[in-house]
């Protein structure tokens, strides 16, 4: 997949490759040390943030945490559930 910023495409590819290896070979096997791809993520994230700003995307809105907070939508109560 492409990045939102064409300038970030190479950084994204490099990071994604690193992440997929880390996720399968380290994280899922119980090693949660994420320093392996951290430098790549840092540069790539900065690039994406810049691209978001250029496209007038509300960065604050993107960065909002909803999952795991009380703002998460609740599954409605249903009879027989």
């Amino acid at each position, binding site marked *: 997949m492409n990045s939102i910023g064409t300038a970030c495409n190479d950084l994204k590819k490099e990071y*994604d490759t690193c*992440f997929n290896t880390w996720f399968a070979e380290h994280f899922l096997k119980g090693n949660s040390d994420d320093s392996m791809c951290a430098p790549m993520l840092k540069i790539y994230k900065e690039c*994406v943030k810049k691209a978001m700003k250029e496209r007038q995307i*509300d960065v604050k809105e993107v960065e909002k945490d909803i999952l795991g907070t009380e703002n998460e939508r609740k599954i409605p109560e249903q009879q027989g559930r």
Partner: protein
Amino acid sequence: MPRYFEVTSIFNFTWDQVAQGFWRRYPNPNSKHVLTEDTVSREVKEGRLISKRLISKTNPYPKWAERFITTKKVFIVEESIVDPKTKTLVTYTRNLGYVKVMSVIEKVVYTESKDHPGKTVAVRSAWIDSQIKGFSRAICAFGYERFKKNCNKMVVGFNHVLLNLFPPQSGNGSLHQEATTRSKLKDAAKNASEHVKSKAVPIYASLHPNKS
């Protein structure tokens, strides 16, 4: 009138495989509308991986919606938590912008199947809402039908990616392998559609208990 929708699908892959495939589910033959995908943040907290991704899609609207929506491109924020200890992957996606016109929130919980070892269960919930006076009911109905229709496509697309990443272990000849993969793909697609049994329930707005 907000509407709620829930559907359960089963993947013929282990939870570890589904979790790996989740990050790589685009592109797939059913994701031509997905334009870009980016990681916005990611960290490990108490052994759980917490990520946020920004996805952009084209999303054609019907003609009557053009008065509310002038862009064909939508941004989606996807939050996720992976817990390798409990083997749980939870994803939560919401659209960015136009939330008053139509807000689509989707939560998917992927867990190991208790009944079928080696398979993964995905429970998908969706909330579709609109705050446009006079049109909210039509918009919700539209969003609800479209979401329902797209559910099966999403599952089949994801299955396609999983089959490519984790081809079934059988046969020695590559030809045989390929044939098996192809037929398995068909089976997976069939299996997926069979398991998409919707339990669609319209929710009446608690704000308007007297209206239905």
